[in-house]
């Protein structure tokens, strides 16, 4: 698996984790502050998708911090409907996957800038993946706190490791993302 394929697979895994977590949360819970007054799922979703849209729009040809991005606004409650929120979320990831899909391994040593700081494309991708995984962990944590006992586990449940290890299915990120997607119950 190439560098780009391995990074893209991890991006898809973490998007799927967040999707599966968000699908378990009620509309009214999306803007609720997280544990200890921390960011709500709505804020985390808007921040991460805003970051991705800024970083990966015209990825090769313009700075990753776009003049049109209002980062501070991402941390304000916006009272969006679930559909509005998810539309923005999906758009951020769409921009990311489109940019990553247009890359070849030969592009990885080329330079892009983020806030005028030059960096190799592979470094920019690694940084972005790190940022995404960090906030998806928080989205999942906040959603799990809201669902409590009704939470549907997104990974190997406590006590389920042996059965998981004996399963014959592939264990890569794509398989994990597909398994997560199959568990989502669409909300009306």
């Amino acid at each position, binding site marked *: *698996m*190439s*560098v780009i*394929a*391995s*990074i893209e*697979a*991890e991006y898809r*895994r*973490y998007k799927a*984790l967040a999707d599966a977590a968000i699908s378990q949360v009620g509309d009214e819970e999306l803007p609720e502050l*997280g*544990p*200890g*007054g*921390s960011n709500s799922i709505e804020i985390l979703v808007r921040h991460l998708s805003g970051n991705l849209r800024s970083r990966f729009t015209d990825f090769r040809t313009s700075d990753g911090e776009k003049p049109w991005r209002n980062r501070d606004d991402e941390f304000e409650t916006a009272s969006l409907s679930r559909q509005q929120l998810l539309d923005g979320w999906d758009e951020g990831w769409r921009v990311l996957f489109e940019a990553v899909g247009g890359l070849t391994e030969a592009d990885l040593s080329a330079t892009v800038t983020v806030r005028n700081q030059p960096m190799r494309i*592979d*470094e920019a991708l*690694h*940084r972005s*993946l*790190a*940022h995404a*995984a*960090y*906030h*998806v*962990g*928080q989205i*999942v*944590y*906040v959603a*799990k*706190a809201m669902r*409590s*006992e009704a939470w549907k586990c997104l990974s*190997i449940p*406590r006590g389920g*490791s*042996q059965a998981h290890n004996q399963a014959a*299915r*592939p*264990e*890569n*990120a794509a*398989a994990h993302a597909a398994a997560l997607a199959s568990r989502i119950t669409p909300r009306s």
Partner: protein
Amino acid sequence: MTRDPGLDQLLFLIDTAYDHASWHGPNLRGALRGVTPAVASWRPRPGRHNIWELLVHAAYWKYVAWRRLTGAKRGSFALAGSNWLSRPVAATARAWAEDLALLDRAHTTLREAVSALAPGTLDRPSAQKGVSRRALVTGVAAHDLYHAGQIQLLKRLKGGG
């Protein structure tokens, strides 16, 4: 022997996710810095993981990645059990320090295994079904950060961060 630049990329990735200066905010070791055994043991409610268990879980998966890179046999993790281990056994400073050291060792051991990979072999399969060596190590870095973000939330909830 020519050094594989892909190895340096992977080492950069796992190091910044773990304990090297990172652009994205606290990495895993940074999130654990200054955490006391009391904070590490605290659960937001019964049955939820505490910071201590997240630490051992991260150490366990670094060990699993090492095993899958090197082909070592199962069952050699330093602690009995797998994936999610109940913690603390004793909420003491010594026990906390021992598990922090366990995590550090797991990272160092994994790092050494990545460094020792032969040039040009990153895209070969690991011992994990359907997962290349490169994908395996990339996944470990993301996993560290996934839980670092959660540790930051737990610290805030407890009021210890």
